[in-house]
């Protein structure tokens, strides 16, 4: 009965990977927000560069947020599996 473990290392790895990926993108978003496009000098170029940086930062933010949410979903799936595993273990224990 002890072998009836359904905890999946792949699921645990998924949680960790998505969480790590999300955590690594957060500083990227902050870095892009902190860049001074005015250094290029030419006004129109600085404006376009600033817009592009803001857009890119927003995209990184969206991807990072989605990765964090997926890590959360993976965690929920893992918790559901663990709960099912425990229930099965208890049922098997009672049947012995």
């Amino acid at each position, binding site marked *: 009965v002890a072998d009836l473990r359904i905890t*999946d290392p*792949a*699921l645990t*790895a*998924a949680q960790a*990977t*998505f969480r*790590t*990926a999300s955590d*690594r*993108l957060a500083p*990227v978003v902050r*870095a*892009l927000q902190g*860049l*001074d*496009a*005015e*250094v*290029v*000098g*030419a*006004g129109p*170029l*600085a404006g376009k*560069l600033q817009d*592009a*940086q803001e857009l*890119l930062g927003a*995209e*990184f933010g969206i*991807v990072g947020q*989605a*990765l964090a949410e*997926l890590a959360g*979903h*993976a965690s929920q*799936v893992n918790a*559901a599996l663990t709960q099912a595993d425990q229930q099965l273990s208890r049922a098997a224990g009672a049947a012995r």
Partner: protein
Amino acid sequence: LNAYARSLPTLEFDPAPGDAGLTRNLARRHFEVAQEARQVLTLVERLDLSALQGRAADALRTVQGTFPPALRNTASAAETLQAAASSWANQLSGFQAEADALERKATAATADHQALQAQQAMLPPGSVVLTDDL
């Protein structure tokens, strides 16, 4: 007025404002952003969920599959910004060197003009002055 305009007193304006060094640094930061996106992409792509079964696993794999294109796009966009900033930094250096040369020429011309005006002031009254020299 651009915050990075240089003082060119004779020209009275900076025709090539900006900071080439800081622009190169900006390009480096864009490169770092692109690198980080590529590393996160590798991280996500390396994750193997093929062993998982069931609808939840299918959903996880489907969502996982949406990240690589998004991360590739953001990395590519950051690389485009890096290339643009880097290229502009080189052009800006050239423009600023040209502006500096013009400033030096203008300063020399102003000095010549002032010297001629001083000479004219010392001429006896009624002297003929070639106005083109002034």
